[in-house]
């Protein structure tokens, strides 16, 4: 029995390593490119031979990149915050209350989550230009919130359905005020779901490229993914491979840390909305 289990374990480790390679090879390649020096950049080797931090120094001296990083962080944080507040309100209503048009709202959220964003780019471009929102933070924040809302509403209402709401009543019977019951009983139960949803929404905003590309024209509101596609080398002949890789690594690090720390919650969040129906 014993050697058999060891064998099985070894087989599974082999399979697990394949998964790790699959997940990390493209990431490792970007890290490698970002630390290669000018002499070995084009050697076509996976691992760097003489690592340097020059590309990182270069991008943090580039005002367009720094500005884009601030834009990305600011726009995504604001969008996430607003989407979570509006999403929590709607999800609470959908999970807990009876009111007309509920199904319609759920169907609408579903439609929007499947919506081809490109179909909105043309009209939004025209509308935002007319309203003076083009190339501003709100000009990106508004569509981001809209596309984050269905995700937020689904995930949150799935979480809210799992909360034992009777506890609130029990707390009140034990003499808690409605505020205490909410603050000390319901909030701690709801927070993990809200937090998970916030991570998913943030990742979705951080990932956007199409809106960032079409609804901005200068570095005023351009986020990092869009800014990266406009990177140019110091001279026309120098390709900006190193700086692009460094920028890519910089915007990947926070997300990878999120994932490593909150793996369990992200898995729960991603699957809660989709499968229980």
């Amino acid at each position, binding site marked *: 029995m014993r050697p058999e289990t060891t064998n099985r*374990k070894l087989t*599974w*480790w082999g399979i*697990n390593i394949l*998964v*790790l390679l699959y*997940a990390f090879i*493209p*990431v490792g390649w*970007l890290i490698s490119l970002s630390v290669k020096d000018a002499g070995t*950049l084009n050697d*076509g080797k*996976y691992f760097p031979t003489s690592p340097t931090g020059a590309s990182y120094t270069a991008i943090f001296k580039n005002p367009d990149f720094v500005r884009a990083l601030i834009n990305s962080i600011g726009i995504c944080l604001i969008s996430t915050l607003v989407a979570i507040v509006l999403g929590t309100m709607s999800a609470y*209503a959908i999970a807990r*209350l*009876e*009111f*007309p*048009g*509920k199904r319609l*709202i*759920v*169907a609408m959220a579903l439609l929007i989550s499947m*919506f*081809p964003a*490109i*179909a*909105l780019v*043309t*009209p939004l*471009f*025209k*509308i935002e230009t007319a309203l003076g929102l083009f190339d501003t933070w709100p000009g990106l924040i*508004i569509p981001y*919130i*809209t596309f984050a809302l*269905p995700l937020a*509403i*689904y995930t949150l209402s799935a979480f809210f359905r799992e909360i034992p709401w009777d506890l609130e009543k029990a707390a009140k019977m034990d003499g808690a005020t409605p505020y205490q019951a909410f603050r000390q009983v319901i909030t701690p139960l709801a927070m993990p779901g809200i937090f998970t949803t916030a991570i998913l929404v943030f990742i979705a905003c*951080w990932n956007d*490229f*199409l809106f960032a*590309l*079409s609804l901005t024209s200068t570095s005023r509101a351009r986020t990092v993914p869009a800014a*990266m*596609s406009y990177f140019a080398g110091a001279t026309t002949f120098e390709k900006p*491979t190193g700086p692009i*890789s460094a920028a*890519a690594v910089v915007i990947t690090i926070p*997300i990878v840390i999120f*994932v*490593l720390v909150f*793996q369990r919650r992200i*898995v729960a969040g*991603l*699957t809660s*909305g*989709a*499968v229980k*129906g």
Partner: protein
Amino acid sequence: MTTLPSPPAAEATEERLDDGTVEIARQRYTDAKKAERRLGLMLVAPAVVLMLAVTAYPILYAIWLSLNKADLRRPNDNQFIWFDNYITVLSSPIWWTAFGVTMLITVISAALELVFGMLLAIVMHRTIVGRGLVRTSALVPYAIVTVVAAFSWRFAWTEDLGWLAPAGSAPLTKFGTSIAIIILAEVWKTVPFMALLLMAGLALVPEDLLKAASMDGATAWKRFWMVTVPLIKPAILVALLFRTLDAFRIFDNIYILTSGANHTSSVSMLTYSNLIRGLNLGIGSAMSVLIFITTGIIAFIFIKLFGAAAPGADAGGRR
């Protein structure tokens, strides 16, 4: 759904008493109902208004623009031209090439994602060692910005730079290899999402059922096809529907990998070029509307023909 404390009480009083109490109780019940409705509507109102303002209105506006000649380079030439833009688009070989390319990428990547997603889901579900490690690292491709991953693949396949590029050839300058790399980038990025949805399905397959089948002499292969697949069919269909619609709007990967060179434009890419590079809002809007309609048709086929239960479609009954 939530049961309010009032209705059973109201019914109970109705049977025994026949004086004013019934009226009062009923009144209270309706008041509570009304208050609940009002609260519910108030809570969803901001989200609904925003979603309608940012999607429904622009789509109507896009339909209107698509019926007009609206070229930003010739602003004085705007006029209502009925379906001329649609005729222009639908009779253009460029549109049909892009449509074919998009369909090709969608079908192949959705199929590959299903296969690899299922394999990854089984690994994540079944592995007896390092489960947390596997699940965590499988999330990395999902979480990475698509543009970042696309750059990684582009550099990897660039001649004289990339570790994957064969010497003396530039795969991203030819149609066939470009499409293959676009599909690779797309599949790499989205297999984890597919796998997570499928894994949630796998978790619902009762272990006893698999054991029973095993007792009856079913091989692992047979158990998978005869027990697991039928049971997780809803999860598979939902995952496929999501991914098909998502793959159909492919933009980021193509923009970074080829910028649509060598006929590798997708419909989204083509619409973008018409809007931002061509500044032709009429044609761009006509394409937007056509993409919107196609998405609708794909969703319809999935839901009606394959019986995919749209998630949340029956949310009223979900507890």
